[in-house]
C-alpha cells in the first residue's frame, strides 16, 4: 500500500470520486451518450487507460475483487502496471478469474465468458468520438450527435464499400445504441461487438485524455452499423483452434512457432484459456 498519510483510499480525493460517479450515473441514464467529465491526472500516463482507471477508482470499494486485462491478457505489462497501482492505493483483492471478479477493467477486449449483472466491465477508450473519422472538430461532432445527423458516417462506410467491396474498419467498429447514438465500442475487435448487445452486465467506458465517460447498461440494444444488403462481418477464425486448450469460436492470437516456423493459434483471453486447461486437468481449485 502507498503511504496513507499522503494518499487517500483509491488515490483520488473523495470529492473527485463523487464527481466522477455523478458523470457515470448520467452516462447510464443516456446509453451511448458521451458525458464530459473533469478528468483527473493520474500517476499513469494519459493514453494508457486513465479513463478506465478513474472509473475503477471511483466505483471500487474495499470488498471488490478486481481483474485487469490488456489485449486479453492478465499478465501484459500494462495490465500488471494498472493492477499494481489500484492494489497499492486500495488493497483490494486481485484475480485473474473473470467469474470471481466484481469489476473487470479491460483494454481492447471483452472477456469470453459472458459477464453477469453483479459485475461491471470498465473499458479504456483512447478516442471516444466515433465521428472523429469523418469530422475532426469536437464542436461539430457534438452538434451531429445532438441532431442524430449521421449521414457523414454512413457515407464514409459506403465509400469504403465502393472502394474495397467491404467495410475496411478493422477494430473499434462503430455501433448504434438504442437507435439513437452512434457509439465507439473502444478498440475491441469486431468479434466482441455482439457482446455489447442485450448484455447482462454494465459496461462503462472511460476516456481520460478526451475527458468523456459513456455507458451501456444491461439489456441495451447495441447494433454494429451495417447495410441491409451488406451484413456486418467479424474476424474469421474458421477452422482454427487454440493449441493450448483446443477452444474454437473464440478470439485467437496468431503466433509463429519458433521451432517449426508454423503459424499457430492461442486463446487471446488468457484467463479463459487457463480456466479451461485447469478444468481439463481436473484441477478444481482454480486460483490465481
Amino acid at each position, binding site marked *: 500500500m502507498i503511504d496513507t498519510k499522503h494518499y487517500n483510499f483509491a488515490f483520488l*480525493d473523495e470529492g473527485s470520486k463523487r464527481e466522477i460517479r455523478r458523470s457515470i450515473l448520467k452516462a447510464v441514464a443516456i446509453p451511448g451518450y458521451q458525458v464530459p467529465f*473533469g478528468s483527473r*491526472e493520474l500517476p499513469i500516463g494519459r493514453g494508457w487507460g486513465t479513463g478506465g482507471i478513474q472509473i475503477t477508482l471511483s466505483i471500487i470499494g474495499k470488498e471488490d475483487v478486481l481483474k485487469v486485462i490488456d489485449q486479453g491478457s492478465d499478465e501484459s505489462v500494462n495490465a500488471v502496471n494498472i493492477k499494481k497501482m489500484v492494489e497499492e492505493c486500495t488493497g483490494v483483492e486481485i484475480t485473474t478469474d473473470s467469474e470471481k471478479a466484481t469489476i473487470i477493467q479491460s483494454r*481492447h477486449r471483452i472477456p469470453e465468458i459472458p459477464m453477469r449483472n453483479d459485475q461491471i466491465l470498465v473499458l479504456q477508450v483512447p478516442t471516444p468520438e466515433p465521428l472523429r473519422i469523418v469530422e475532426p472538430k469536437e464542436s461539430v461532432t457534438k452538434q451531429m450527435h445532438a441532431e442524430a445527423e449521421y449521414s457523414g458516417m454512413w457515407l464514409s462506410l459506403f465509400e469504403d464499400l465502393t472502394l474495397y467491396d467491404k467495410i475496411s474498419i478493422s477494430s473499434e467498429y462503430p455501433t448504434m445504441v438504442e437507435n439513437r447514438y452512434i457509439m465507439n465500442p473502444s478498440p475491441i475487435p469486431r468479434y466482441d461487438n455482439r457482446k455489447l448487445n442485450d448484455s447482462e452486465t454494465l459496461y462503462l467506458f472511460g476516456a481520460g485524455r478526451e475527458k468523456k465517460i459513456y455507458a451501456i447498461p444491461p439489456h441495451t440494444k447495441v447494433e454494429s452499423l451495417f447495410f441491409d444488403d451488406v451484413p456486418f462481418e467479424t474476424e474469421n477464425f474458421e477452422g482454427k483452434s487454440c493449441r493450448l486448450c483446443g477452444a474454437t469460436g473464440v478470439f485467437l492470437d496468431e503466433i509463429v512457432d519458433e521451432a517449426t516456423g508454423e503459424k499457430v493459434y492461442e486463446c487471446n483471453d488468457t484467463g479463459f484459456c487457463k480456466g479451461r486447461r485447469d478444468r481439463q486437468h481436473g484441477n478444481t481449485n482454480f486460483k490465481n
Partner: protein
Amino acid sequence: MAYVAVTGGKEAIEQSLKLLELFRESGEDITVSCIKENMRLLVDKIMSEAGFYSEEYAALALKQCEGSVEEAVFLLRAYRSTLPRNYYSSPVDTREMRLIRRISAAFKDIPGGQILGPTYDYSHRLLNFSLLEERPDSINHESEDETLSDLSGDDIYCGRVTDLLRAENLLKEVPEDNTEPFDVTSNLLTFPAPRSARLQTFARSDAGFLGGVAYSSMRGYGAVHPTVSELRCGYVEVCVPYVLDETETLCIGEILVTEVEALVPSHTETADEFDKMTLAGGYGMIFGRNENKAIAMSIADASLETEGNTPSQDQEFVLTHGDSLEMSGFISHLKLPHYVTFQSKLDRVREKEEA
C-alpha cells in the same frame, strides 16, 4: 531483460524499476533544496506546465525523474489529483505586484520607470568555463550578500502601461466580465471556449508548443505581430474567501509570476473604421520567471481574436494539442501492445488481398 509483452510482465516491470533507480543514483547526490535554489527557471517551467505552484515539490519531482521535464510535470499533476479543492482564489490585481522586473517595448518612459531586473537578454551566451571550478565552498557568500542588498532597494509597485492607453481611449473597449471563470481542470472544454478557459489552457500549455503557435502567427501563418506593452515579473499575494465571512479574504501566500500585455491594432476594413482604429490586447500570465512563454501566451490569446484559417487562429487546434501530459501520454502509449487491433487490421488486409 527480454520479455513477451503479454507474459512475465510483472518481473520485467520490477527489474525495469530497479534499473531506473540505478540510473537515477549517481556518485554525486544532489539535494531537493539544491535543485530548488540552482535550477529556478526549470522549477518555474515545471510548475507552470503542471499548473501546480510548489517550488519544493517541483524540485522533488525533478530529482525523482533524472530532470525530465515531462516526467516532472506528470508527477506534479498526478499528485495534484489527490488534493481536495476547497477554494477558488480571489482575483489578483497585478498593479499590486511586488516587482523584480518590468519593461515596456512600447514606450521609452513609463511612470515608475523600466526595471531591467534579472534577465539573460543582455548577457553574452558564452560558456563560462570558470563555473567548472566553482565549488559550494569557493563562493564567497558574504560579498554575495552585500551585492544583493546593494542591488535591492525598497519594494517596487506600479500601475500598468495599459492604464495610460485606456485613459486616452486608445484601447479597445472591453466590457468588464464578471461571469464565473470556467475551470479547465474540472470540466471538459467546449467550443467556442470562453476566454477564461483559453487563458487557463495556455497558462498550463507546454512551453514549446505555445512558442511554436506564437511563432507561426508572427511569421505569417496568422496575423499577430504584437508590441509588448508591458512585461512584468514579481510576487503577487494569493487570497481566498474567508469561510466564516465571505466578504473577508485570507491571504494564503505569495507566488512569483510573469505577466505580459501585448497590443495589436484592431482589424479595420473601411476608411471609417481605420479612423476609429484602437489597440486590442493579448494577455499572458505564467507561474514563475517564464518570459517567453508569457509573451507566447499573449500572442496566442490575441491570435484567437482574429479571423482566418491558420492553426493559431483555430481554437480547437491550439487548445486541444498543447498539454504536456496529454501529448506525451498519448504519444508514449504507442509503446503499449496493440496485438488485438493489429490482428483485426491483418484480417482486413489479408481479406483485401484475397479479394
